[in-house]
């Protein structure tokens, strides 16, 4: 148990450890202080101030009348007083603290009440005489903040974090058409909201029309109303947390894993690939069929409109004084029985399974006869009573192709609670009028 003399020969090493330890500690802490001072928003604010100084100085030089000169001089003085600080809008009605205006100085309601600038690039861009400016002026920015409409992470002061394009932030910025989805949070009267004569939320309205055309509510529900085959688009899809979504088969990059993209990809890719289920029962006690949603593979614009519409169904908590209801559009039932029957066909989303033209052929996994029935061929083979019975009671038993495979996901639900009386009769008349 001999010991190296720990004292004198080591003392020198101890001393340099002492010196270098203290010095390195100071230097590392200095690095912390420096990195704390270096903030992206400071650069943007410096840039903005410099531009404003130049602009107002030029305005003084080019002013014609004395009044104009005085006004320009005032603006120049105001530009000199622009402080370097984090700016925030506290919007307690929306439980928001939005610091967007720290960089987007054109929209700072105190610093720039006109909410417009001449600059062409973000973050200073705030083009006047646009739909955007009208909407901003109509929604008092000091009361609304920014994120209630635009999404993003208001409390952040760094670009990517503030735009919500980081992990663990569920709502990134609404880009492009998607922004219209926010209007529906308060406004039911979207068709009345016009800017310069044109309806602003036109894509939402178009999305709603597409939903009706394709008959989405034949399988899906919206706020409880619709078919039983799949999820409720408002109560489940529009508020789905990211941790519940399996992005494995979407082909999206990790940074694009957003709810909006998840919805959109249902329209641009084959849903049976996105949600492949477990047809051979490898991971579950029973085999599960892949998604029954048909591969619509829509053009980009239609997919965006539908995505925006579905996101617009989100009913996050808005205080009653901000809601703008619209009277329900009355349903105009046609007097012609065949035409009325077609309206009923559309209203209950029969097109989802039977096709917009009732020719069927929508795939039904592991169904003995392949796809859904062609009504134009099958309806003439039944009497009116038989057709009524089928619609009322549905067809629950759907024969399997492979008895060990999963249950076919599509089946005819029972509509007797929803389609009745004259509507039912007119529907049957319409179906009987179809010929191949």
């Amino acid at each position, binding site marked *: 148990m001999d010991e190296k003399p720990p004292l004198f020969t080591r003392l020198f090493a101890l*001393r*340099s450890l*002492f*010196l270098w330890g*203290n*010095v390195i*500690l*100071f230097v590392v*802490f*200095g690095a*912390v*202080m420096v990195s*704390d001072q270096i903030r992206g928003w400071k650069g943007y604010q410096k840039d903005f101030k410099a531009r404003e100084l130049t602009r107002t100085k030029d305005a003084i030089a080019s002013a014609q009348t004395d009044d104009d000169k005085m006004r320009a001089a005032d603006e120049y003085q*105001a530009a000199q007083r622009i402080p370097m*600080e*984090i700016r*925030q809008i*506290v919007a307690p009605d929306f439980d928001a*603290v939005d*610091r967007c205006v720290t960089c987007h100085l054109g929209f700072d*309601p*105190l610093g720039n*009440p*006109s909410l417009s600038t001449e600059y062409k690039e973000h973050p200073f861009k705030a083009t006047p005489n646009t739909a955007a400016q009208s909407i901003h002026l109509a929604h008092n920015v*000091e009361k609304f903040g920014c994120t209630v409409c635009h999404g993003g992470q208001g409390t952040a002061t760094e670009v990517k974090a503030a735009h919500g394009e980081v992990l663990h932030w569920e709502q990134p910025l609404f880009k492009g058409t998607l922004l219209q989805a926010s209007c529906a949070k308060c406004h039911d009267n979207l068709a009345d909201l016009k800017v310069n004569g044109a309806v602003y939320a036109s894509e939402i309205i178009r999305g709603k029309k597409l939903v009706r055309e394709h008959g989405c509510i034949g399988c899906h529900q919206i706020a409880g109303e619709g078919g039983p085959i799949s999820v409720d688009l408002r109560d489940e899809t529009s508020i789905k947390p990211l941790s519940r979504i399996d992005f494995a088969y979407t082909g999206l990059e990790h940074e694009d894993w957003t709810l909006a993209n998840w919805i959109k990809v249902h329209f641009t890719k084959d849903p049976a690939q996105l949600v492949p289920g477990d047809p051979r029962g490898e991971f579950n006690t029973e085999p599960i069929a892949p998604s029954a949603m048909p591969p619509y593979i829509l053009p980009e614009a239609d997919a965006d409109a539908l995505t925006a519409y579905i996101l617009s169904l989100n009913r996050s908590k808005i205080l009653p004084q901000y809601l703008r209801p619209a009277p329900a559009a009355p349903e105009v039932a046609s007097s012609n029985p065949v035409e009325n029957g077609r309206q009923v066909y559309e209203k209950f989303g029969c097109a989802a399974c039977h096709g917009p033209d009732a020719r069927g052929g929508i795939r039904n996994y592991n169904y003995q006869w392949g796809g859904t029935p062609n009504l134009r061929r099958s309806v003439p083979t039944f009497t009116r009573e038989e057709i009524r019975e089928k619609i009322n009671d549905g067809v629950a038993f759907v024969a399997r192709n492979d008895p060990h495979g999963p249950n076919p996901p599509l089946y005819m639900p029972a509509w007797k609670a929803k389609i009745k009386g004259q509507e039912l009769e007119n529907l049957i008349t319409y179906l009987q009028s179809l010929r191949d």
Partner: protein
Amino acid sequence: MGDTAQPVQPEVTRRSFLFWGWGALLAFLASATGATLRFFLPNVLYEPSQKFRAGKVTSYPLGVTIDKTNRVWIIRNEVGLYAMWARCTHLGCTPNWFPAESRFRCPCHGSNYTAAGDVIAGPAPKPLWRCMVTQTPQGDLVVDKAIMENRPGAREKAPFFIAV
């Protein structure tokens, strides 16, 4: 040691070694203290902003309008409009406006002020403070409590007074 003819390499003495070591430590402690003190100064406030918009200039009636949220009075007379901080210059209570007597009276120690802010009774040592007021091109009133003036003469001029 050694003969004086040869130049001696300057050695780092034990003394200067320790000096730099302790010096670095003191520098670290000083900067850590400084940084912690800076930590305690908030960069954003969850209070009503010192600078705020207060509606349209032309919408104010003659007389005194009380803005409780921002603790200012907006006062309009025949000549124009100004904003006064509703804080008694004695010890900081909020005086009340008595239109029948055309004066502000502070409930705490009885200071009285005219509508212009001058002290006409009580222990208040100075006139009421007026805040900077500006007008946006659209005609909105912007009040800034960070910049104030209470000297007669200066307070009746821009930017503490808007001619309407």
